[in-house]
């Protein structure tokens, strides 16, 4: 029996794709290979016994090759689904994507119809989870206006979804300068009027440094809170329903729940 090989890669689409390329081209046998992403804190998970570890250096030329093959041999839709899994917080996503692609390259675009397959089913499930969070964020993001008329929003999503949220707001607020910060990952989306949005890193980000409200800002926050209070019908109060629809984890970033 061969010794199991584990490819350890960066926790990003690029890292995962590089590992997949290397694992595949090693011709060691899919059953003897596992791909593992490093977790978000930069620490390694527990090492497994009786396995050989390979550290994967992200290589962008390999990434392009893998993504091109997915689009050509499977489909664009499959690529998008893989992408969403890649940015999710699902543990073991690298190996899941690997298994999905092995299956995908053998059956082609039809793979998306194999809903009863466990791996495909899992891919669908994670996709729904990520897309739901994106949809939630479209609604739950709150901007506050700073002194220089810049709109700032801080969110703490579970998945790394900034790049999926940004197009919606760039389309909606074309003439605004805005910034959406992912407080967990210390990255941000920047948008300037007439330009396309960009994703940047904010290694020195801290909560306090982004709040210098403009003179009108607090007035509108109060107006919004007043509206929020008054629109509820007392006789129908149902906090359970409210919590089902709007989980508590979103609320700390939402104006109407801040005192």
């Amino acid at each position, binding site marked *: 029996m061969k010794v199991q090989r584990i490819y350890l890669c960066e926790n990003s689409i690029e890292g995962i794709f590089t590992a997949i390329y290397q694992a595949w081209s090693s011709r060691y046998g899919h059953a003897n290979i596992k791909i593992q992403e490093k977790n978000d804190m930069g620490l390694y998970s527990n090492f497994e016994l009786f396995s050989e570890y390979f550290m994967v250096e992200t290589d962008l030329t390999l990434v392009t090759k893998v993504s091109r093959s997915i689009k050509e041999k499977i489909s664009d839709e499959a690529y998008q689904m893989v992408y969403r899994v890649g940015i999710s917080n699902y543990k073991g996503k690298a190996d899941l994507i690997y298994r999905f692609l092995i299956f995908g390259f053998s059956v082609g675009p039809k793979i998306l119809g194999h809903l*009863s397959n466990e791996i495909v089913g899992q891919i669908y499930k994670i996709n729904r989870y990520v897309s739901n969070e994106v949809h939630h964020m479209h*609604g739950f993001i709150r901007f506050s206006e700073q002194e220089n008329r810049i709109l700032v929003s801080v969110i703490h999503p579970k998945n790394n979804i900034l790049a999926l949220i940004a197009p*919606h707001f760039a389309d909606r607020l074309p003439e605004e300068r805005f910034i959406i910060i992912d407080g967990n990952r210390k990255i941000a989306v920047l948008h300037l009027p007439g330009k396309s949005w960009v994703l940047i890193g904010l290694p020195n980000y801290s909560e306090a440094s982004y709040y210098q409200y403009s003179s009108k800002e607090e007035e509108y926050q109060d107006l*919004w809170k007043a509206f929020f209070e008054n629109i509820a*019908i007392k006789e*129908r109060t149902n906090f359970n329903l409210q919590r089902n629809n*709007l989980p508590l984890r979103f609320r700390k970033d939402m104006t109407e729940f801040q005192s």
Partner: protein
Amino acid sequence: MIFQEDMTIQRKLEILSDAAKYDVACTSSGVDRKGNGSGMGNSLACGICHTFSADGRCISLLKILFTNECIFDCKYCINRSSNDIVRASFTPQEVCELTMEFYRRNYIEGLFLSSGILVSPNHTMELLLQTLVLLREKHHFNGYIHCKAIPGADPVLIEMLGWYADRMSVNLELPTADSLRELAPHKKRKNILKPIRQIQLRRENEKEYLGLPNKQILLGKSDIIDSDMKEVISANTSLQLYQSTPKMKRRFVPAGQSTQMIIGATKESDYQIMSVAEALYKNFNLKRVFFSAFMNVNQDNRLPSTEEGPPLLREHRLYQADWLIRFYGFQTKELLSEEKPYFNVLLDPKCDWALRHLEMFPVEVNKADYYTLLKVPGIGTNSVRKIMMARKNASLDFADLKRMGVVLKRAVYFITCKGRMMYPMRLDEDTITRQLLSDKKQLPHGVDQSITYKQLTLFDDFNLNFNVN
């Protein structure tokens, strides 16, 4: 009546959002519109909820009345002219400012503008139109706008408003003409249906012009239709185009129109209410009919008391049935009848229907067609779509169904996989009902948890009284 001069905008917002909260529709769905690269706003067909209030209802739009001054005296309404409450009115500028600033901060998806009748329907309508024009033309607002059409206003005004709004609605208020006459003496059912018809015809006319297929039309016309509806439909006078298409890159009421009815203020049965809703969908091509559980906000003793809370469960059942009619191919007369005019309190309408039609079950998941699968309790439109896709590649088993999101707890009594049921069971109404209700968590909120099925049959006969009050 109390008038106050120099009210702050905060105070006005408090009064006029409080007055608008009984309006049900807060949806922002039905129209896909990309941003135009300038101004502000776009719109998504799926709609976006921006927050949820303490009653658990979605807040999507800035839902306000333009004014709560009203010359009408509808008995059920908090803003009726005989009530002694604080009155306030916005100016068009104030509404625009609130909408734009809220929208920028992503508090809202757009504006829902309704109003009391100030001076006259025409005067009110002109103010609403002025607000919308200002918002679209001066502030270049490209987000969602839902606006009420005021019955009795000049058709020209209604048509103009339609070019600026995404959705329009006229409230039917009450299901039948009799109860409307009784509770809203100033309103006439025919006057309410006329603008609905006008907007419908104008939309269809524009769709023909644009060559768009009309996906919404349900098959067949409803056979249950009252005399008012007949009269309004046959009178084709309302199909006059008062304006040639204005030169703007907009469509006429692209998200369609909706309406709402108050449930439980008058004595109509669920059967009557659903028949009216179905007739509205089929004959007036509405997008949505909303139901609003009645609350006796005026403590008026001529109306039923709602001290034990509004009839929320009844409202819930009506919405479930509404869904079955719009997306599942059901008809009102399949779900209810003259002899059984109320929905089952304990079971949802689909389960209830399936239990009365056990001769049609079980169905084989791997073979049954789309519409047959849709009628199985626990299988919804999404699950059916997935099943149809998955069974092309493999024959499905119960574990696969579970993974795809089918609610086996309910579906298991009505389906077979590869010719077998999940486990052997007796297929009769009593057994299945008892099984379905044995999980207390499945019982609707507000129903006595200690209930057993035997008590239930008694209770079912009781149903009539339970629902009416």
